[in-house]
């Protein structure tokens, strides 16, 4: 039996199929993964993401500490509530985790990290914080939901206290705000507009009920995965891990190289990899033949070399199979994938595959 979120009994009542995810009992789907996927693309869906780990860092040196700990630079964050997506690297430049950091005020930043990496993340953060005047405080008493889709904010707004409602609706993308004992951010993991809402666990079941009553579809982890794949958002443990540099996981854009004297963990090895023109590409693939691309399938680029699918699946929005993959360096846009011994044709495409309900690639 895994850990249960404050909304667990709500999922069971709604007929959810429950699976283990990073030690948590989480809803996989509530009937049809595809319908949940389409609900988010065309209307609104809500995900229980209370398994995500929220860590508050407070202290006089918190900014200085995070400029050392994270590959992106929190010096970019000047406005309260502004968020930044970043990797946390090990000394070798491998990815310990990817996370979102929110700037709350000069002595308080909030991190939202993955559930499956919680223990090692906290250990790494605490170990590196020792040299700084920073308190590390996991907020396990908080629950989180993500409401996502073109109608998500409009439908969820009545659940926000009237005092804060308009400010919440006025939030710009990748900004968050405190709203009484809630924290609301215009972020997500689906490629659609929406909010992620953090709240005390005790309030979570009632808020969940209100969101569902407002016409927002309950969605499970299965739809979350196909949505994030279409949005070409990386999944930790699948697209990158401690043996992968962000440069080979399509996350080069999250590394703040400037100023060049900022000494963030992993910088040295990363500088060397940056100069290496033979490093692997991280790309989107679309399957031109019939079939479904899956994680770990082998990619063959004739005359060049081999690669691997890191996240593959069926795109409900496009109606074709798509994937994220690491492939050998080189200038080419055709490859083949070994699917049960048959070589199927794929095309290298620019990601994201889908954004704000619209297919972005040529099918």
């Amino acid at each position: 039996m895994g850990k249960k979120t404050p909304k667990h009994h709500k999922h069971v009542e709604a007929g959810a199929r429950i699976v283990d995810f990073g030690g948590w009992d989480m809803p996989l789907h509530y009937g049809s993964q595809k319908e949940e996927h389409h609900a988010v693309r065309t209307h609104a869906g809500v995900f229980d993401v209370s398994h995500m780990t929220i860590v508050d860092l407070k202290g006089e040196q918190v900014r200085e500490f995070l400029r050392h700990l994270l590959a992106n630079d929190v010096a970019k964050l000047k406005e309260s509530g502004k968020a930044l997506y970043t990797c946390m690297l090990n000394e070798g430049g491998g990815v310990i985790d990817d996370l979102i950091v929110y700037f709350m005020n000069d002595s308080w930043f909030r991190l939202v990290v993955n559930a499956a990496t919680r223990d090692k993340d906290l250990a790494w953060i605490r170990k590196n914080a020792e040299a700084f005047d920073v308190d590390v405080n996991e907020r396990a008493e908080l629950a989180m939901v993500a409401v996502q889709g073109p109608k998500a904010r409009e439908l969820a707004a009545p659940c926000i206290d009237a005092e804060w409602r308009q400010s919440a609706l006025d939030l710009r993308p990748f900004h968050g705000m405190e709203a009484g004992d809630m924290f609301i951010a215009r972020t997500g993991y689906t490629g659609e507009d929406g909010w992620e809402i953090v709240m005390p666990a005790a309030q979570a079941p009632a808020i969940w009920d209100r969101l569902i009553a407002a016409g927002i579809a309950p969605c499970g982890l299965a739809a979350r995965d196909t949505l994030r794949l279409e949005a070409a958002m990386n999944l930790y443990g699948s697209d990158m891990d401690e043996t992968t540099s962000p440069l080979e996981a399509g996350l080069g854009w999250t590394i703040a190289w400037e100023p060049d004297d900022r000494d963030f963990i992993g910088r040295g090895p990363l500088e060397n990899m940056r100069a290496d023109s033979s490093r692997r590409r991280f790309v989107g693939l679309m399957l031109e033949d019939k079939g479904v691309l899956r994680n770990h399938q082998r990619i063959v680029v004739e005359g060049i070399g081999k690669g691997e699918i890191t996240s593959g699946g069926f795109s409900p929005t496009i109606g074709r199979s798509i994937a994220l993959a690491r492939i050998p360096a080189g200038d080419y846009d055709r490859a083949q994938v070994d699917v049960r011994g048959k070589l199927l044709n794929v095309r290298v495409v620019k990601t994201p595959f889908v954004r704000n309900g619209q297919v972005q690639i040529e099918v």
Partner: protein
Amino acid sequence: MSELPGDLLYTTEHEWLRREDDGSITIGVTDHAQAALGDFVYVELPEMGQEVDSGGDMAVVESVKAASDVYAPVDGTVVAINESLADDPEVINADPYGDGWIVKLQPSGEIDEGALLTPDAYQSLLDEEEA
């Protein structure tokens, strides 16, 4: 609770088979299997006339979630394939025991019913898996 017709035989791999009057057998996946795998998006069918061995894989059904082999429950020859599944694999979700059938085999020998499950035995298997 998944649907479980009383006139079929079942396998531990969550397939069903029906003995037809002409001696052939029709094979598909059970309601339980389609519910567990979720929305089907692709089916890889065998060739007509292909010979299959009991326990060997003869087709693949892929849902959004995962790929799953369909095994031959008996030795035999493929005498029909449900070609409509190529364009409409979701028929398996909608009607797993009817229009969602997958393959028809002509068994090469006697069918060993002892190796297959009666509806009651299959129900017991499902109950065990649930527990």
